[in-house]
């Protein structure tokens, strides 16, 4: 029995033998997960049904107001979208924006003590796939790491094994954000000490890894410091999305935004962007044992402006 479980352990970790059967195995145990989710559903259901009429009225008004503002913004958005499309046509670089998305509910948060993940109530039957980006209304939350038939697991951006390529919104400096294992801290390794970064700079997804669509806010620089003579600055960031307090998340369908022409453009920019791509691809599977090597490969980021398209 012991030999068998050691065999399982090695087979799953090193050779990833059960990747395909995990869907069925996960759906086999999902009844337990649904039962475990019941009490919280019940509580939120009760607290939603005991709201007073006055509260509902106030909330309704507030929502209507918000809706009005958002709709007004949207009017402008379609206009800008058109304009952006025209400009892109002039530059002959076409990038399609994905519109397919789906609301999902968080079932449980972080059950395995060594990783930061959460369980959502959508699975393979809804078209969820491994590596799918997950956001909420504030920013990027993480990506799907395992899929069951009706549930799937999302690995958060603060997980130690997670990396995400980003760019500073202010000056298009690119970097890779690594999870630190803490709920509100992300590391930004390999940033040169003379890089133009300030505390409070917003980091958005650069889309270089091909997994996350470009332009979603990820984190804010919370700490920037460097030692005299050190090669790299000591930079950390705070995620903008409240990772352990959001109940509803949004799944995005990223329809392979970067086709060949875009990728070749990326190759021209810097070697660092290439490293970012490889780091992102290698970092996505939480079980891969070669993560330390891939982080070594990330070369020092030049503090030159990188135009992504």
């Amino acid at each position, binding site marked *: *029995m*012991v030999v*068998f*479980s*050691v*065999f*399982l*352990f*090695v*087979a*799953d*970790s090193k050779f990833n033998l*059960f990747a395909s059967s*995990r869907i069925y*195995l*996960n759906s*086999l*145990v999902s009844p*337990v*997960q649904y*039962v*475990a*989710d019941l*009490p*919280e559903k019940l509580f939120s259901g009760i607290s939603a049904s005991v709201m007073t009429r006055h509260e509902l009225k106030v909330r309704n008004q507030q929502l209507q107001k918000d809706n009005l503002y958002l709709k007004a913004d949207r009017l402008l958005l379609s206009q800008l979208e058109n304009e952006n499309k025209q400009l892109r046509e002039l530059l002959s670089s076409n990038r399609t924006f994905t519109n397919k998305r789906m609301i999902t509910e968080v*079932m*449980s*948060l*972080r*059950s*395995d*003590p*060594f*990783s930061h*993940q959460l*369980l959502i109530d959508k699975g393979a039957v809804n078209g969820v796939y491994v590596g799918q980006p997950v956001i909420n209304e504030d920013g990027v939350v993480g990506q799907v*790491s*395992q899929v069951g038939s009706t549930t799937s*697991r999302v690995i958060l951006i603060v997980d*130690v*094994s997670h990396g995400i390529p980003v760019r500073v919104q202010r000056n298009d400096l690119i970097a890779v954000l690594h999870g*630190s*294992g*803490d*709920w509100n801290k992300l590391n930004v390794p390999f940033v040169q000490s003379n890089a133009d970064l300030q505390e409070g700079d917003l980091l958005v997804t650069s889309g270089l890894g091909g997994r996350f669509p470009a332009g979603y806010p990820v984190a804010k620089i919370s700490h920037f410091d460097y030692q005299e003579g050190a090669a790299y600055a000591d930079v950390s960031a705070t995620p903008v999305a409240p990772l*352990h307090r959001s109940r509803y998340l949004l799944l995005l369908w990223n329809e392979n935004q970067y086709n060949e022409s875009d990728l070749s453009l990326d190759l021209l920019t810097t070697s660092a962007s290439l490293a970012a791509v490889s780091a992102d691809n290698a970092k996505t599977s*939480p*079980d*891969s*044992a070669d*993560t*330390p090597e891939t982080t070594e490969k990330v070369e020092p980021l030049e503090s030159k402006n990188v135009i992504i398209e």
Partner: protein
Amino acid sequence: MSLLSNYLAIYFTYFVGLVCAILPLPTMLNAFRPDWMILIIFYWVLALPHRVSIGHAFILGIVFDLLLGSTLGMHALLFSLLAYIVITNYQLFRYFTLVQTTLLVGLFSLLSKLALYWMASSLQDIILHTSYFWSVFSSMLIWPWFFLFLRFIRLRFKVA
């Protein structure tokens, strides 16, 4: 029929234990969640070593791995080892007082935490928080009540 009802009671406690082990809790309380699976396996193997064997512990471990999304076999290995230790020594452990078994549970819990940490760190670089070990104390706190409760269930449903 009696055999079936015997197993039904045991399986039902397994199910409740699994649900308790993954029940969503606030982040503050989550660190104090007792190791329900270790308590349950320890109790049943100690009480009925001929009925609840290493096989049970192994299957529970696999299911638990799937529920947690951890590497397959991690908990299965651990629980089988735990069941093995208890099965080989159950005659000794049965003469322990409640205080002694509580300390034993604490020891098992601590060892399993260390083993889990060791296995996980062999796969990926992880960061250890001190809160990781707090559940050892909560397991020890809950064990006497849990023991008495399960014994009540065992006698009430005449599981033998």
